[in-house]
């Protein structure tokens, strides 16, 4: 359905706006290869000898959105993957990579967990051997969990309790989603981090870290046949899971505006809003991306003009479409000036969203937004890390690697009516969630257990 609509619109757009299109160039991922090992492990390879660097990534199809009982387990487990294995002590994996000049780290999202090593290519055999060691022989002990639990609790305090934006974002997700597991913060709720045990970590590993739930993605300066040989030898024996449990809960339709307030010791309030939007791969995705750019891209964008430049309401304001595997969000936010009001900021954000719904953008605005998306796509292909990430994300989301031309064509196919139509479909007032982060008012008592003394 999506391709059909895009193709028709593409013809129209080519007639209207061909002068504004970027000249074609060769997609750096055109020669990417997909290999499946017998145990179900998928390997994506993109050989490019341009610079002597290689990015080796393992994408695990598990994120906080899969958690059913213990929030934060996917992320806490990501930390445990660095705490040692049968043959290696804690953090020794990182040390071995770093002392060869490599960068090693990992991150967890609502949909996946990603481990990456960027390094000069002569060390690739070591990288593969180390990944195989921790996947086969990870050691999750009471002692290592006790230390790492504290590290993650400090990370949570740093990113959420102490950070106004972190606080706001947590409240926004928890209010926008009431049933869907995306409501839960990826870092986890504090009480779960304090209590989750070794048995749960081991179960989690057994459930999700199976060969057929992993995608290995490698881009940069290496020899594909050599690498595949290494992967066969080291990861070919990894077990396959017969069944992988997913959290099945979906979000019921929202039936009216939701609001929340967070009090935090700030001088500058923050206002954020979210609407439910389609998951990744939906036919409306590109039009929603264009709407994001119209709102947010550059000093001529609507939100910068309305909230920062024309009237002194906010220090920054933007919006965007956030596509996740199972549900999407469209959001806007404003960092309100200490000398302005959150109420005014909210009214301006609503006004700009309503404007998207009530009239199509001008041709100039549309062309500008599409151009910004195109340039971003083309210029974002520079590093092997970016390329390995791109092919892995595509594979996980779509089961294939989308050619750059296809993505560019889909962007170019968006017309002004598309933008108005998707805004009309998704950005409805009764589906809106508004969260304001405000300073405490004089004399206000903090809620029991909320930490701080009265302001």
């Amino acid at each position, binding site marked *: 359905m999506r391709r059909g609509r895009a193709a028709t619109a593409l013809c129209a757009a080519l007639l209207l706006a061909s002068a504004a299109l*970027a*000249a074609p*160039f060769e997609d*750096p991922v055109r020669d990417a290869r997909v290999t499946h090992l017998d145990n179900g492990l998928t390997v994506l390879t993109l050989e490019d000898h*341009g*610079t*002597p*660097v290689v990015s080796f990534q393992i994408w695990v199809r598990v994120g906080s959105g899969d958690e059913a009982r213990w929030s934060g387990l996917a992320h806490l487990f990501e930390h445990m993957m*660095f705490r040692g294995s049968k*043959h*290696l002590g*804690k*953090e020794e994996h*990182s*040390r071995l990579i*770093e*002392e060869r*000049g*490599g*960068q090693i780290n990992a991150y967890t999202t609502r949909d996946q967990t990603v481990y990456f090593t960027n*390094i*000069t*290519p002569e060390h690739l055999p070591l990288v*593969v*051997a180390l990944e195989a*060691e921790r996947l086969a022989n990870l050691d999750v002990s009471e002692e290592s969990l*006790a*230390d790492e639990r*504290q*590290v993650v*609790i*400090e990370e949570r*305090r*740093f990113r959420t*309790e*102490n*950070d*106004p934006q972190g606080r706001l974002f947590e409240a926004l997700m928890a209010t926008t989603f009431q049933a869907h597991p995306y409501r839960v913060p990826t870092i986890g709720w504090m009480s779960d981090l304090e209590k989750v045990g070794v048995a749960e970590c081991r179960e989690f590993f057994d459930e999700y870290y199976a060969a057929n739930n992993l995608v290995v993605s490698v881009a940069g300066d290496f020899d594909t046949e050599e690498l595949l040989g290494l992967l066969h030898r080291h990861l070919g024996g990894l077990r396959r899971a017969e069944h992988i449990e997913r959290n099945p809960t979906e979000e019921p339709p929202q039936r009216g505006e939701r609001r929340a307030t967070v009090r935090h*010791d*700030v001088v500058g309030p923050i206002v954020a809003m979210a609407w439910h939007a389609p998951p990744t791969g939906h036919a409306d995705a590109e039009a929603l991306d264009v709407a994001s750019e119209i709102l947010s891209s*550059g*000093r*001529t964008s609507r939100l910068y003009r309305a909230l*920062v430049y024309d009237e*002194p309401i906010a*220090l920054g304001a933007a919006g965007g479409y956030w596509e996740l595997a199972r549900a999407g969000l469209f959001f806007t936010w404003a*960092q309100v000036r*200490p000398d302005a009001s959150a109420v005014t900021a909210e009214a301006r954000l609503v006004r700009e969203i309503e404007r998207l719904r009530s009239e199509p953008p001008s041709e*100039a605005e549309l062309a500008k937004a599409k*151009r*910004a998306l195109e*340039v971003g796509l*083309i*210029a974002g*292909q*520079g590093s*092997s890390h970016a390329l390995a990430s791109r092919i892995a994300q595509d594979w996980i989301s779509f089961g294939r690697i989308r050619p750059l031309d296809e993505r560019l064509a889909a962007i170019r196919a968006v017309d002004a009516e598309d933008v108005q139509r998707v805004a009309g479909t998704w950005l409805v007032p009764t589906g809106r969630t508004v969260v304001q982060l405000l300073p405490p008012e004089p004399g206000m008592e903090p809620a029991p257990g909320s*930490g701080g*003394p009265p*302001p």
Partner: protein
Amino acid sequence: MRPVRPAARLAAAALALVCAGCGLFAKPAWERPPPPPRATDVVPEERLHREELANGVRVLVLEDPRLPAFALGVVTRRGAGIESPAEAGVASFTAELMERGAGERSALELAGIVDALGASLEVGSDWDAMSARVSGLSEDGDALFDVLADVVLRPRFDADEAEKVRSEHIAALRQAADDPATLLGWHFAKTLYAGHRYGVPEAGTPETLARLDGAAARAFHRRVFTPAASIVYASGDFEPEALLERIRTTYGAWQGPPPPELGPPPPVPAARRIVIVDRPDLGQAQVALGHEGIARTDPRRLEAQLLNTALGGGGFSSRLMGRIRADEGLTYGIYSQFVQRHRPGPFVVSTFTRVPKVGELLGGVLEELERVQAEPPSEAELARVQSQRSGQFALALETSREVAGALVELDIYGLPPDSLDTYRHRVWAVTPEQTAAVARELIDPARCSIVVVGPAEALRPQLEPFGPVEVVEP
């Protein structure tokens, strides 16, 4: 396994290859010595062009046709560091105003051109330099070249835009204090550098910003954006000869005063101060400790960098990360740094932990600073950080934009232009005696000032064992 020097490493690697050829891996990869690094050119000389124009403008152009995009910029060798404390913030004020109207175009007209091309225009400043840069698709190169020339050579500094920017910067400063880490940085600088420009936030204060207007920005622009202090650089996909010709024509006729003098060197703090910035609402305290450090051009900078990599600048494998994060679970991150500017910046260790653990954490950090002197990196530990730095170096120069950026950075400080080519050799030439010497010369735990952002009531008893405590308002 113990990393070894390159010569020994080569022989060991050859041996490992023989074993690999037998098809039998007696040992796992992490117990075998690392293979020798590949010999690669750091700077692709055939794609690099440098020259100096008659008026002193230096030009650096690095061609890379792999993506149809490019970046073009002008960087000056002076920044906020030349401001007096009373005019703090004029560099960032000037930078923002340069984006708000140039040549024939108003702020919105200028933004309109850039946004219509999906391009970007960024003017910024830091302590040591100012920078104006355009980037976008190569086919828009001519239009973006003209935008940059207007912004650098013909900024308008309209009075109404100056009013807007001043108001925005004052509001932004007030709001920035909502972030405990930002607050920590300001108070740490103030504690170390009272009375010096480095003791005032780079973006200024509400008081210094209140005095700024379009005329102040115009005057500062004229001082700093001057040919003898400027570097014009480009990287990406373009026709190098045509671009160079346009640069010569446009920037060759530029006239201006000689580069401004550097600001005075900062004073050396006499003794430890302990400051609590009282934020009763915080459950996690932000912590910084340190003292004076070295300038970017200090002859000991490489030894200092290697020592710091071992101590706390080396990702997950540094001494501080190993102890404070991995062993003790006290923090999510801890880093040490010699902040290097035209003038000596601080040596600083920064981290955060839950409020009841601040005293314990500080004790651990100070012990590690003492230990780095009593037990400086051994030959093996030094070899690990040498290997780490030389490998990271290759990674940091993956794209042409990164290579051009590194070359421009050297030029800002007048460091030798071949520094990138010689870097790995110089790293491997450092001896354990040299890093031990800089540990003694450049680190002094007893003189480290300590600044903590958090609830004073709970922090005071934990900090008093380290010396007299001052409590200040945020």
